[in-house]
């Protein structure tokens, strides 16, 4: 049975705040579903942009089969740091699971999947919202 170390947040991420107990419940349920052993979660520091705990877990990969953050959006927002974290896990022959999203990165080829989700999520902050689109539709700019 694979041993996966949980990783949760004690602060909001991308506007979402989830109680730590709920994060742990989701991780526990995910591990149960995939038949993995859930190792007690490490909780990231509350300071903005801190990933010191994640870095520590990456240093300690030898003792586990992989990491299981509550969500992939708890990885570093900085692209270079995020890709480096994922690459370190894969290079060590380990796995990075995401409990909320329900999937895992087990090879280098799967890293772009996570990266695409992150970049689209970040780009959505610059996209029109429903009210913008409704106003546009009312404007009949391209009637025809």
């Amino acid at each position, binding site marked *: 049975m694979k041993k996966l170390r949980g990783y949760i947040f004690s602060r909001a991420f991308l506007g979402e705040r989830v109680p730590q107990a709920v994060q742990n419940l989701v991780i526990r349920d995910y591990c149960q579903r995939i038949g993995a052993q859930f190792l007690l979660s490490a909780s990231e520091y509350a300071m903005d942009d801190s990933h010191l705990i994640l870095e520590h877990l990456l240093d300690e990969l030898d003792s586990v089969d992989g990491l299981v953050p509550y969500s992939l959006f708890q990885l570093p927002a900085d692209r270079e740091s995020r890709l480096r974290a994922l690459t370190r896990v894969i290079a060590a022959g380990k796995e990075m699971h995401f409990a909320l*999203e329900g999937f895992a990165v087990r090879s280098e080829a799967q890293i772009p999947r996570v990266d695409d*989700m992150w970049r*689209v999520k970040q*780009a*959505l902050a610059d996209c029109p919202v429903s009210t913008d689109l409704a106003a546009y539709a009312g404007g009949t700019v391209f009637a025809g």
Partner: protein
Amino acid sequence: MFMTVEDQALNTEFLEQGYVIRPVADQAALDWIRDGFVALAEEALGRKSDLPPEVFLNHIHEQVPVPQLNDFRLRMIRGINAADALRENYYKLARTYLDALVGNELAMQLRVNLSIQFPDDDSSLLPVHADTWSGDSPYEVVVWLPLVNCYGSKAMYLLPANEYAPFDRDFVRLQGSSSEEVYKSIENKVKWLEIDYGQVMVFNQSLPHGNRINAEPETRWSMNCRFKSVFTPYGDKKLGEFFEPITLRAASRLGMDYRYPGTGK
């Protein structure tokens, strides 16, 4: 609008009816999915079947007792979703229609759903609902796929788009009543969507829909999955936990990567 005549016609039909039914865009992908379910069901039952696939699936209720239906269904859903090729094959079934109705830069639901509805079974019913009432964005559409021919009460129903305005006006009157009363209020207006194996439906999930007890002598097997344009607003079903971009295009990749010269941002 600068659309082809064909795309314009498909969009008009979708807007007027609330759905379109078309032949699947990729027959091999459809057969791959149905063969996958047959293999999973045979594995669950512990024996091979020599029946044609449609007969085997239509009569699965003769081999699975109702109390075991939920476990059986979960096993089927998990089994088919565990196959890496499932979602790409599912997308291929409706790709051309999604391109025309939604766009060619899409987000797709992470897990494809399955419905198995035995004859006369009341444990698998979906009360009248619109997906938007439970957190889906109105920018989503559902791709609905029958794995057997669906007709009569073995099919699903939908309130057609041209019947929605009176429903919308009267809905306040139904506040405080039950979903069954909501259904009764539109019972004579809903359309039962007859659809055969080999066809696929794209429908507007903002319109009330659901199913009733299947009074036909065969089991319904159908799948459903949500798609939306990747950069349109999301509801409670978010990118990552529910949706994943599947067809990001070069211009979007360039835009997401762009930094002003020398600034790094």
